[in-house]
């Protein structure tokens, strides 16, 4: 990636040698990414990240198919899917937000029941970013295929982590930084035959779907990150699943704790817990003192002071939703990192519960 910031600085649209070198690098990256999914490289549209990819999928499809005015999605999508859908609602579209079970799974039968003659799109994420739950996208995509409705999946958390059923996916969004790649770059996979209108008009880059000079270093970095992730995907997934089993086993021993999400049908790298009687932001800050970086879906961490929509959708009791903790692992997580967390967490939880007026078990 580094040479493309300086030595190979050419604009990929230029005819000169520097430009040609940049163009070659981008097309190689496109081919490599296509190969990770087993799809033709022409289907890969580079974007500024998954937010743009999701917007292009949802709004681009809507603009290209004005007769279809109904969208189906789930209650636990990322805001980069929910907010474009909400915007469509403001434009007069109808959106069905499918509910999920207590683990956060969409019922494929509910998708089938929700599809109408004017359904534009079904968008269900591959794996949830907060609780890790894997969605049954193979079944959902199959139903969409059967009914002739395009199926989009936000695969930000799943790409490079688990196998994806590309044969039933029409549109798929990915962001590089979730693969340890650079920030500010991603792509949308668009199956041949799916008609999208561009959101950005200009020089006609990316087969007219996304004008704007290509982010060459970012794209090269994205492809490198993807190659690394896929080369070690099975080994990494097995290792992270091992960590997850250990985390669940040990952390649920702490009284007043619940696992948010599915015990097994989950992305390997995300585990989410709630602790009664304490608030998540305090928990994150205390762990930070010990050099552990985690996150929370608590209200205090959000600008609108309400707990995360995902925890609400899986009906985590309010008091427990405030005390949520998301633990993410990655390729570089070592077994000793897990042990450090497990040695620190019970003390931190106990300490914060001492401060709290709500005593667990009273």
């Amino acid at each position, binding site marked *: 990636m580094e040479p493309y910031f300086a030595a190979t600085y050419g604009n990929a649209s230029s005819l000169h040698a520097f430009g040609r070198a940049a163009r070659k690098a981008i097309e190689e990256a496109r081919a490599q990414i296509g190969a990770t999914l087993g799809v033709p490289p022409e289907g890969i549209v580079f974007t500024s990240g998954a937010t743009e990819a999701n917007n292009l999928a949802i709004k681009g499809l809507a603009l290209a198919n004005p007769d279809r005015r109904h969208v189906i999605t789930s209650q636990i999508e990322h805001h980069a899917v929910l907010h474009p859908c909400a915007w469509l609602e403001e434009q007069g579209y109808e959106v069905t937000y499918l509910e999920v079970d207590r683990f956060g799974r969409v019922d494929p039968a509910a998708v089938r029941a929700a599809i109408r003659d004017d359904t534009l799109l079904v968008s269900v994420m591959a794996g949830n970013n907060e609780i890790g739950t894997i969605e049954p996208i193979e079944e959902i995509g199959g139903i969409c295929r059967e009914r002739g409705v395009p199926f989009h999946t936000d695969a930000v958390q799943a790409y490079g982590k688990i196998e994806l059923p590309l044969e039933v996916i029409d549109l798929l969004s990915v962001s590089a930084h979730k693969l340890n790649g650079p920030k500010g770059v991603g792509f949308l996979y668009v199956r041949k035959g799916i008609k999208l209108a561009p959101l950005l008009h200009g020089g006609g880059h990316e087969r007219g779907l996304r004008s704007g000079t290509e982010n060459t270093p970012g794209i090269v970095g994205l492809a490198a990150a993807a190659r690394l992730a896929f080369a070690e995907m099975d080994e990494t997934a097995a290792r992270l699943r091992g960590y997850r089993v250990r985390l669940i086993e040990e952390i649920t021993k702490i009284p007043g704790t619940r696992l948010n999400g599915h015990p097994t049908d989950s992305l390997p790298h995300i585990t989410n817990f709630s602790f009664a009687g304490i608030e998540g932001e305090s928990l994150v*800050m205390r762990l930070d003192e010990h050099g552990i970086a985690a996150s929370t879906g*608590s209200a205090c961490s959000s600008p609108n002071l309400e707990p995360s929509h995902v925890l*609400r959708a899986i009906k985590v009791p309010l008091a427990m939703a405030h005390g949520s903790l998301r633990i993410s692992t990655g390729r570089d997580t070592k077994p000793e990192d897990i042990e450090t967390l497990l040695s620190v967490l019970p003390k931190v939880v106990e300490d914060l519960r001492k401060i709290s007026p709500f005593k667990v078990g009273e």
Partner: protein
Amino acid sequence: MMYTEKVIEHFRHPHNQGKLPDYSAVGKVGNIVCGDVMWLYIKVDVDEQGREVISDISWETFGCTAAIATSSMVSDLAKGKTIEEAIAITNKDVADELGGLPPVKLHCSALAADALNEAIYNYLTAAGREIPAALERRHAHIADEMERLERRYAAFLESQEEAHKGG
């Protein structure tokens, strides 16, 4: 979200934390819906000059970093003060002493000052004493606020239920 060093310091090593065994009164404020609940205990004694003084103070808080730091700070500010002096402590005093709070967290300092206000109000009420007008006004305002939160809590739960009535 940027907290000042002072906020972090109070969060890491909070002062006067816990529940006083022999408290004179307690002020309970906040609501689980916004994730902050503060219970503030005061012990009131009469000093040599015959003035009522907050001789000891403690608190229990469910909340974020800012809520814990403001609890700690308000307890520092009120400890050893006369009732009159303690009544005069405002949310701005609490936030200022902490070197400021992020805008989204200012409500935590309000909560801390409210808890102190309520503890004093409850102390004076239990003692059958006259309530200063300013304290009475703030108490009425806090009660309104609590009621508003209760309503929001109800609406919130309702919206949660509705969200689950199939699509």
